[in-house]
């Protein structure tokens, strides 16, 4: 079975500063990786995904993530955050396509300070 670890439950960052949200996974087989964002009282929105190919993946709202197989990591980065980025961010993995369910991490609450 696979698992996802998001070590930081909260990350406070000043507006316009860079941010990195960490995600590590554990799996005995190849995985597909995702980052979702959840704004207050809303559902989960896909930020970006890694299925194959280039290990640097760009997503919406200026976010990007890098898949590092040797370190089993998929950290999310943004060079300059905005107040509107305040939200809960979830890393998730799947071991294949089709009907596989996603395994989520516990989430990281990104708090943007003015």
């Amino acid at each position, binding site marked *: 079975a696979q698992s996802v670890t998001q070590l930081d439950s909260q990350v406070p960052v000043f507006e316009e500063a860079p941010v990195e949200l960490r995600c590590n996974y554990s799996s005995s087989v190849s995985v*597909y990786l*995702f980052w*979702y964002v959840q704004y207050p009282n*809303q*559902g*989960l*929105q*896909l930020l970006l*995904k890694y*299925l194959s190919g280039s290990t640097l993946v760009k997503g919406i709202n200026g976010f990007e993530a890098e898949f590092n197989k040797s370190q089993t990591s998929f950290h999310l980065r943004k060079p300059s955050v905005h107040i509107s980025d305040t939200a809960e961010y*979830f890393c*998730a993995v799947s071991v294949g*396509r*089709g*009907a*596989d*369910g*996603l*395994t*989520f*991490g*516990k*989430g990281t609450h990104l708090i943007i300070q003015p």
Partner: protein
Amino acid sequence: EPEVTQTPSHQVTQMGQEVILRCVPISNHLYFYWYRQILGQKVEFLVSFYNNEISEKSEIFDDQFSVERPDGSNFTLKIRSTKLEDSAMYFCASSRRGDEQFFGPGTRLTVL
């Protein structure tokens, strides 16, 4: 832009009652999922559905749960006899090819 919708947004029920949570997936999607998120905890996979049958289910998805696609548009999750610990946010998701999953806004279930 097409989106997954869920009704109701909030459901309050008494312990032991049956509830049905409804979802309308994106119209050309073929894979359907249910997840739950207990307050303060992570999102957990419950079940996936493809080609009119359950494809995968987690150990959470026991005999009190069932899913159905009664027509060409709806996808439902039924909880037969609710328990206090079923209180959670329930998310429906759909996917066209089984890779990228699109989530609905969720139904908050409160069991009293």
